[in-house]
């Protein structure tokens, strides 16, 4: 009651609706602690209804009440409810299935042209590195750092080089595994870097890819000059088809981002970046999966597979699988 004896309209309004707000508050506390799974089905049905009722209370309160605390409370309550009501619609499993069977292949297909560009640039780098090193082996030291080569330098004897691609059973040990994993982390870093550099409008991405290609080219030249070329490619191929594919796709994703910034067309730059970013993000997540699989193959295949023919076979099969996967999955419009 105020001085005049009449009750405020806002107070009447509050008295009528306060119970519903408290109910929603209790529901939200429960949901925030244990997730939506913690609510009973009756409560789950009540939630959207209470949300809409509170939303309308908020609109009314904004126009008739000057109680700052009440309006803030309603706004806060509505926002908290909004987050749950408009939360994700599908369970984690369905999201993963959608990624694997629909989004990922589709996005890769959509990035075909940047991927081809990246592939061509890398191959050009390979050709250049190979050609230069065949002509003059000193190029090797320019193109590859000591640690990356890991003993596979032109100064190594053919025997030693052969040892690096084939190994006896007794030679297994921590050292070789560490080197394998070093290569793996190095290549993952190259993939992430090409993606990141894509934001810098794409040119550094192509540059990095080219340089990466030359380093592989230098290595292949060293082995080729000792007549171990085919064996080296085989050694590379087991996990290399997957890994190099992943690097090319990572570069394609980066180029997509760069293109969005450079050529936003109808959208604002920020919106174009957001749109391209979500598409590129899916491609990059796929690259991470591919790198993971490549690492798996590298770790296991290195120990187990010694014959060059089998290595080519495995590499070829993996390549065929990836190409088939990206070409045929996710084609139907659901």
């Amino acid at each position, binding site marked *: 009651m*105020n*001085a*005049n004896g*009449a009750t*405020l309209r*806002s*107070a009447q309004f*509050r008295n009528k609706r*306060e119970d519903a707000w408290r109910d929603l508050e209790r529901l939200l506390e429960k949901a925030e602690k244990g*997730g939506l799974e913690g609510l009973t089905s009756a409560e789950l049905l009540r939630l959207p209804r209470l949300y809409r009722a509170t*939303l309308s209370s*908020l609109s009314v309160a904004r126009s*008739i009440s*000057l*109680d700052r*605390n009440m309006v803030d*409370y309603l*706004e*806060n*309550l509505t*926002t*908290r409810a909004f*987050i749950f009501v*408009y*939360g*994700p*619609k599908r369970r*984690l499993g369905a*999201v993963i299935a*959608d990624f694997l069977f629909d989004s990922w292949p589709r996005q890769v297909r959509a990035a075909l042209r940047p991927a081809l560009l990246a592939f061509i640039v890398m191959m050009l780098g390979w050709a250049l590195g190979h050609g230069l090193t065949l002509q003059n082996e000193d190029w090797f030291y320019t193109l590859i*750092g000591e*640690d990356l080569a890991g003993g596979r330098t032109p100064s190594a004897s053919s025997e030693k080089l052969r040892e690096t691609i084939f190994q006896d059973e007794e030679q297994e*040990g*921590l050292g*070789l*595994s560490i080197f*394998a*994993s070093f290569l793996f*982390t190095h290549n*993952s870093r190259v993939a*992430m870097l090409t*993606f*990141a550099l894509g*934001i810098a409008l794409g040119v550094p991405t192509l540059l990095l890819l080219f340089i990466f290609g030359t380093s592989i080219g230098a290595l292949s030249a060293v082995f080729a000059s000792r007549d171990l070329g085919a064996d080296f490619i085989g050694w590379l191929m087991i996990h290399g088809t997957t890994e190099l594919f992943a690097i090319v796709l990572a570069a394609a994703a980066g180029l997509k*981002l760069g293109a969005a910034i450079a050529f936003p067309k109808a959208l604002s730059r*920020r919106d174009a*970046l*957001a749109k391209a*970013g*979500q598409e*590129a*993000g*899916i491609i990059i*997540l796929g690259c*991470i999966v591919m*790198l*993971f699989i490549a*690492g*798996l193959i590298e*770790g296991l295949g290195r120990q187990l597979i010694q014959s060059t023919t089998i290595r080519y076979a495995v590499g070829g099969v993996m390549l065929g699988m990836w190409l088939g996967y990206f070409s045929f999955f996710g084609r139907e419009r659901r």
Partner: protein
Amino acid sequence: MTQKSLREIVTPEGAALHVQLAERGSRAVALVLDLFFMFCAIGALILVLVLFASVVGWEIQGLAYIVFLLAFFAIRSFYFIFFELRSNGRTPGKRIVGLRVINRHGGPLSPAAIVSRNVLREVEVFLPMTFLFARPSSQSEAWVTMALLIWSGIFVFMPLFNRDRLRLGDMVGGTWVIDTPQTILAPDMAQSGGAKFTFTPQQLSAYGIHELQILESVLRKGDNLTLNDVATRIANKIEWEGAVDNPRVFLQDYYAGLRHVLEGKLLFGVRRRDKFDKA
């Protein structure tokens, strides 16, 4: 709530809700907590692998190392995505600090947005870390590493460079990170107390909505000194005769009266913003 960090989102029903952007410091703390949890998970993994190897035999150390590396890679890549997908924008670190990721455009947080904003964290956090821990083997490599460190530093500190505190991942994912405080509904200040003091309409037309709400917060939180001070000031302004022996009751009654008058005006669509507003 400070005005500068308030943002508006429009719900699908067309209502405008206000959200509070998270402090950069809070986000940093949440990130550190998450990295710590990841670190613990990896530590647990190492422990398990070592125990396993010591039981089965040390020859499998090569294999164990590879398993470790792959698992480390998996944890590092999928931790954030997994939790943000599962709990609608909350990782354990964010939950502790009280933050949440939301869609800037008012819709649901899509999986693609979650994926892309976290994949970019590779670029923002892990890439600079690798440059930080790099050991360049020559002078020119050192310069290159330094340059790359500075370049990637731009990404790390991106939230400092824009108004919406977006990091690169937020820009690409179309998201905001917001504070999620929980406001409590307090009693109505106009309903508490008898009508000990009465005021004339003339006296109640001294202030607008802005002063009314300041008075409300003083009544809710103020100590006796503030109450006394404000009561004296109002009494002087409205030329109140008589003693103000109980400042709290005086202010409560004045608040109730002022609110009644101003809400009455609201019904006619007149919003008197503050004491200078001639409405």
